[in-house]
């Protein structure tokens, strides 16, 4: 008879409960790393790489990205944080914590001989119910979003970050920035492309001296000193090629018989660029931006024409400038007839282009752009590490404001939503007579991890606070006249319960929904694993 042999696998294989427990432990470890950075009293992490470069951050996604997480299951969580960062932009820490907690509880259930698939379907059901409940009961429609709720959203997002002390100041800055890039696309949808907000960092001064600049800022100076500092109104040409002496792309050899020809070639090389520049200037361009270089020789023509030329503009910046000013990024002058022409229609326009000095750097500002407005946030701060962290915090806040504007609905923060859902789901679980009941009950408990961690980080009595919170939410859901209790959340500074909707601690509903959805999906993914095979690196192929 054939003995029950393991198939020939060149690697380690683990299966069953072992693997599940290991995965859960790994996820738990990841969540423990970021746990202390949650909430308004969370702290920062300092990450040092082997060269000695330092990153100081509070952003969950950034922390996890910088750490070299090796365990495969833990990697899922890292990716989860990144997904949240991409989709929503904030809540990266929460999503990891919730996912890890869901997993931990699921593992306990499996140990009690409940099949993972039952748990999975229970979790799925709970997730759907919670999203529905948020959208039906918990959200507050903000029909006409004034500035106040937006500023509050931004403040909530920033409260855990380095700049929390100045959150009033920055929230205003952020909201103004987002509102000023508002645009309507062809389908009539209102969009807030936050990519149009350029964040420039210049160290010096203090965080409070950061400011919003109307206009797109390019972090380069003009190419020659002789150029004017200001051009108005500006006609902008965006080029994506060299304005240097013309040169064949490949190492082409030109062989001439008559030495006089040689001189002509030289002459032609210089003249070709000159002609191009003349075409540009003739079309009316007085600001020339190129991603490539400009020869010293070519600069003089611009100086004489009183135009600003900027070389080595970053391609990304260039695209934004082109979009904002209505210019077309020109890659070549060649037209269909084989001639070289420059169409004035390719020019973008702006009210003015000026060179200003910010800190120690020269910056080109493009103000009053034609098609869509662009703004730049100039951040100031004590040193580079601080600026980097400020940028991350502002990015989160910008995303949040954008989401709020797009979804128009907000929910109360500070653990209010999580507690409400927990109470609701627990009730729901008791109405179900199937195996899913247990899973849903655990899901309900797992959500409480957010208020718990918040309270623990603030060094408050978590058990007592959460119990109180749940009591409020229970009243809100059972007694019709106490509905407003559903926005009760934690006040972490004083360690009490308050109505967070009134206190201005709010978040866009979309962010909360996504956190629950993503966290559940990630937990399910890991839960489904019952076998892990680690392949040993094949030595024969490892060389390449």
């Amino acid at each position, binding site marked *: 008879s054939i003995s029950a042999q393991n198939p020939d696998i060149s690697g380690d294989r683990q299966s069953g409960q072992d693997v599940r427990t290991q995965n859960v432990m790994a996820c738990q470890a990841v969540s423990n790393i970021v746990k202390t950075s949650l909430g308004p009293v969370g702290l920062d992490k300092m990450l040092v790489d082997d060269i000695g470069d330092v990153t100081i951050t509070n952003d969950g996604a950034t922390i996890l990205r910088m*750490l070299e997480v090796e365990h495969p299951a833990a990697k899922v969580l890292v990716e989860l944080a990144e997904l949240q960062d991409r989709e929503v932009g904030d809540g990266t820490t929460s999503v990891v914590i919730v996912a890890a907690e869901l997993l931990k509880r699921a593992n306990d259930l499996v140990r009690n001989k409940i099949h993972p698939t039952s748990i999975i379907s229970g979790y799925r059901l709970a997730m759907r119910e919670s999203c529905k409940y948020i959208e039906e009961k918990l959200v507050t429609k903000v029909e006409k979003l004034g500035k106040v709720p937006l500023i509050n959203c931004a403040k909530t997002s920033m409260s855990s970050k380095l700049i929390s002390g100045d959150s009033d100041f920055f929230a205003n800055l952020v909201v103004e920035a987002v509102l000023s890039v508002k645009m309507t696309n062809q389908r009539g949808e209102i969009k807030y492309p936050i990519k149009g907000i350029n964040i420039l960092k210049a160290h010096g001064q203090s965080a409070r001296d950061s400011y919003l600049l109307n206009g797109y800022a390019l972090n380069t100076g003009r190419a020659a000193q002789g150029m004017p500092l200001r051009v108005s109104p500006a006609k902008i040409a965006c080029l994506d090629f060299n304005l240097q002496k013309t040169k064949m792309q490949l190492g082409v050899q030109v062989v001439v018989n008559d030495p006089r020809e040689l001189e002509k070639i030289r002459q032609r090389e210089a003249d070709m660029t000159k002609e191009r520049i003349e075409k540009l200037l003739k079309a009316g361009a007085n600001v020339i931006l190129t991603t490539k270089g400009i020869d010293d020789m070519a600069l*003089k023509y611009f100086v004489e024409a009183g135009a600003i030329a900027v070389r080595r503009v970053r391609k990304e910046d260039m695209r934004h400038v082109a979009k904002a000013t209505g210019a077309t990024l020109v890659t070549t002058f060649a037209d269909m007839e084989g001639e070289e022409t420059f169409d004035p229609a390719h020019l973008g326009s702006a009210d003015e282009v000026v060179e200003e000095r910010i800190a120690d750097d020269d910056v080109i500002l493009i103000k009053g752009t034609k098609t869509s407005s662009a703004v730049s946030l100039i951040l100031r701060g004590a040193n580079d590490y*601080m600026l980097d962290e400020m940028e991350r915090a502002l990015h989160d806040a910008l995303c949040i404001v954008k989401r709020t504007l797009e979804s128009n609905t907000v929910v109360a923060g500070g653990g209010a939503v999580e507690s409400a859902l927990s109470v609701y789901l627990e009730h729901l679980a008791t109405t179900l007579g199937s195996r899913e009941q247990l899973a849903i009950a655990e899901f309900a408990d797992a959500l409480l991890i957010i208020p718990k961690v918040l309270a623990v980080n603030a060094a408050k009595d978590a058990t007592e606070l959460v119990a109180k919170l749940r009591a409020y939410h229970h009243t809100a859901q059972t007694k019709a006249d106490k509905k407003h209790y559903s926005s009760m959340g934690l006040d972490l500074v004083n360690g009490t319960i308050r109505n967070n909707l009134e206190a201005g601690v709010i978040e866009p509903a979309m962010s909360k929904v996504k956190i629950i959805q993503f966290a559940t999906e990630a937990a399910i993914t890991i839960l489904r694993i019952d076998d892990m095979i680690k392949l040993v690196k094949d030595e024969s192929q490892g060389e390449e």
Partner: protein
Amino acid sequence: MHAPVLVLSDSLKRESGSKVHHGNIQASKAVADIIRTTLGPRSMLKMLLDAGGGIVVTNDGNAILRELDVAHPAAKSMIELSRTQDEEVGDGTTSVIVLAGEMLHVAEAFLEKNYHPTVICRAYIKALEDSIAVLDKIAMSIDINDRSQVLGLVKSCIGTKFTSQFGDLIADLAIDATTTVGVDLGQGLREVDIKKYIKVEKVPGGQFEDSEVLKGVMFNKDVVAPGKMKRKIVNPRIILLDCPLEYKKGENQTNAELVREEDWEVLLKLEEEYIENICVQILKFKPDLVITEKGLSDLACHYFSKAGVSAIRRLRKTDNNRIAKACGAVIVNRPDELQESDIGTGAGLFEVKKIGDDFFSFIVDCKEPKACTVLLRGPSKDFINEVERNLQDAMSVARNIIKNPKLVPGGGATELTVSATLKQKSATIEGIEKWPYEAAAIAFEAIPRTLAQNCGVNVIRTMTALQGKHANGENAWTGIDGNTGAIADMKESKIWDSYNVKAQTFKTAIEAACMLLRIDDIVSGIKKKQAPGSGPSKPTIETEGDADNEQILPD
């Protein structure tokens, strides 16, 4: 039961909790202790040996810290502060570190009492706001057109430096230089670009008193053909070029195949003609001086010397820009496009002088120079280097004054006033933030205390006396005279600081302290992630067979 689950790679080192707080504070204090003795007029210099064996002798906080190679990440962050301060205002690099160190030091006591760091940070930020408000209140405006006032201020700012023993000279140089290059932007704004338009030339030898601000520029070059070209021209007509005055190959790879013997001559002749051509074009404008950034062939040199024109070659781009600013010329790239307006006529004198062993060209007596050179002389190189650092500080101070003509008392008086006001205010603060707020107020006293320490007086007695004077927020101008250690009125002793510098010091120090306090976890040893594709690079394939082929030259 299970093997331990490894989530992070084992090369990572992770520290967290109170250990981190403690470590960060210790490291920051260590940095502050290094440069503590360089604060104030009785400061001492530090001698640093860099990796290359060179010596730096300085008491400039930034210059000292820049040379240090520290391992602790928090210490690194502190050093960055000094750099920020230097770039932003150019002065107060030592104070900022001392203050930040002290802020962290007082926070340590609270951390031991299990205060939450965010509470301390909030209190600090509040203290910062209030301290800036105090600064605004005691600041005094001055008239920047009154030279004696500006001079006094610059003098007192650099009074702590090594060169203060030479009296007003450095301050004079700094003010002259900055007023020369100051540009009025309109709307009462003035901009001074020190980096671009002021050049400091250090020439060892001579006496320190021989240093001067030139009304124009100088550079370390001689005319191309000494003896044949004039070395002194009054009211020169100057042409600036940034193209070579020699035969240059084109950008494309061109080969000439010569079949007949005569062609060879033609080719050579062409090259000569080319040079002759551009020389003629230049000479048409009757210049007295031709300066190019690139090369200048012997032939061109011959044409110029025959026409009695002096020429200088291989000048740096930045120098060329400064000459253009000083004499009003435009830098030209193609000689055939020269115009009369491109020629600089603003200079009064061109002269080549021999100083020591080197020849220096001077373009001076310019009518309206918008760029200038500061010529520093001194007995040794180290000496001049330190003088240059002092001068940079002094120029920054002068620039700050021109930009924001407000000043505050020096000698620790400002800090004492801020401290006293904050102490009073702390009584009105509710909640646990009161104590860190008060501690921040006390931390400001670190500056006058260090001053007192450095000038060797009885610290406790002096500080108590000063605190007493400031206690009710009066006597805002009473501080320590850093030379004698006596308590004096800063207004009478003329010890001032620029408002910008003080405000920046407070802001940078407190914000940085907050940032370091908020850290509760350090993970080190992270490998820098390699960009995809940048692994071991593929060996570049070089076949020897086509060595004849012209290589593609990078542009």
